[in-house]
């Protein structure tokens, strides 16, 4: 008790200074970025590194302006990758969450299916891609399927873990108030699993993004991955970097989106974090 109190005291004393520092770190961060870009630019301008391997930031910016505003060639690629990623991921959520709930609830289903789920989860799912191409062709759907396989297991396994880890005492409390099994599922187990489901979605999203790229690496005529591969083949490294940066940006935006979703769906956890920090 006494220890927490003294810590509390220290924190309140240090608070104004810390807040000042926090503002400064943002500024420092921006300065750091400028510094990195300047050094990078200088290194490439001075030809210390072959610009074919590491193009200058200005060259990358130029390539970005070209593909976004002049030739506008990037938009079809974006659209195709977007479709593959979204369709595959949404399917993974639609199928992974209910299956995870069922596996979490039913010991029988778990004993029947869990070994296969774990085996499939452990397999590098890319290994299925040749088969998926045979089954679904080289168009959109084989890629959607690969993204789906990449994402679905993280979602399923996490959902299942959420159901299994629901505090037994909460279930018993509900039962004591005469809740039916369905009510217990809807009002206790499902909400208790939401943080796990979101964690699974976040993992799945990362894997989905990788699968979009890998699928387009294999066999594609469109998509950001394809654009990167093609730019590489043509030694057009600035364009290659544009593609990579687009994927990075997509990853960052998507995980930020997931964080927001989490704050909306799981407000009770973020409130506790805010108070703890």
């Amino acid at each position, binding site marked *: 008790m006494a220890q927490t109190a003294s810590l509390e005291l220290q924190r309140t004393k240090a608070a104004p200074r810390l807040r000042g520092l926090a503002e400064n770190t943002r500024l420092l961060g921006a300065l750091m970025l400028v510094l990195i870009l300047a050094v990078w630019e200088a290194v490439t301008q001075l030809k210390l590194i072959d610009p074919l391997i590491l193009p200058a930031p200005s060259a990358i910016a130029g390539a970005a302006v070209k593909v976004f505003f002049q030739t506008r060639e990037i938009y079809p690629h974006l659209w195709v990758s977007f479709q593959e990623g979204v369709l595959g991921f949404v399917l993974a959520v639609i199928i992974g969450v209910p299956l995870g709930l069922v596996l979490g609830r039913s010991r029988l289903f778990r004993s029947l299916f869990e070994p296969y789920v774990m085996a499939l989860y452990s397999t590098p799912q890319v290994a299925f891609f040749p088969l998926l191409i045979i089954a679904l062709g080289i168009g959109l759907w084989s890629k959607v399927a690969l993204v789906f396989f990449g994402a679905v297991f993280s979602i399923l396994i996490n959902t299942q873990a959420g159901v299994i880890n629901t505090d037994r*005492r909460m279930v018993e409390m509900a039962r004591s108030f*005469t809740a039916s099994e369905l*009510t217990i599922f809807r*009002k206790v187990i499902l909400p208790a699993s939401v943080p796990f489901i979101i964690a699974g979605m976040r993992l799945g999203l990362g894997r989905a993004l990788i699968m979009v790229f890998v699928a387009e690496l294999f066999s594609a005529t469109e998509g950001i991955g394809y654009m990167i591969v093609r730019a590489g083949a043509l030694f057009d490294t600035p364009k290659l970097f544009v593609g990579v940066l687009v994927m990075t940006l997509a990853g960052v935006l998507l995980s930020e989106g997931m964080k927001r979703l989490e704050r909306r769906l799981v407000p*009770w*956890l973020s409130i*506790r974090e805010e108070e703890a920090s």
Partner: protein
Amino acid sequence: MVAQVGSALSQPASGDARPAGVRVERVGHEFPGSRQRNAPPVRALADVSLDVPPQTFVSIVGPSGCGKTTLLRIIDGLVMPTTGAVWIDGAPVTGPARDRAMVFQDADLLPWRTTLANVMFGLEVQGAPRAACEARAREAIARVGLDGFEHHYPGQLSGGMRQRVGLARALSTDPRLLLMDEPFGALDAQTREAMQEELLRLWEQDQKTVVFITHSIDEAVLLSDTVVVMTARPGTIREVIPIELPRPRWREEDLRGDPRFAEYRRRINALLHEPR
């Protein structure tokens, strides 16, 4: 605060709200063993019989693992006894029912629900209309002194406040029998005393039948009309001690100074620690 409360709460929630009488008849319970973990079956309770007249406050004390909690869960209907039966006003207990409400050891609140929503949970699963749920929940919240914390999550409340939420949740369903499983066990001494006083005050208002489990002899004597002392596993009843101290008892400084209080304490302590 207290004066304006009670209008809706004194209205029965589901028909009859008279405090119930409980009869525990030769209840025994055995938890099945596990061949996988090579664990033999555990006898938790043996031949427990107990009569709790309506409007009495009964505490059960006993060493850890004497099956107190199991007995309470059997009375609630969460666990069916291996032998014997429990009767509430002459009707056998076959499962949880609306005439009983439990206050749990760790409050067992739902972390994603605010105070108000947590208190509403009991009424909600019992199928009360939403508006009525909310009105009754708000009244119960006022009754336990949590006004102003309706929209806090359990993670933002102290241990004592969480227990108040658990108590409000149970009270809001207007049970005829209140079952309390060491509700103040995890609280610090000061909060615990405050909660005991609060409980005495609430009990004086409607004198519900209460079965209260505790480790604390002081708490048992202070709160109860009857203290039941149990023996270690398998739990049996060692002695039933009527506590003949005047009520209302919320000025507990007076009570703790009472020589009879000390005598009850000494006696229960002796029963708990001396071999039979």
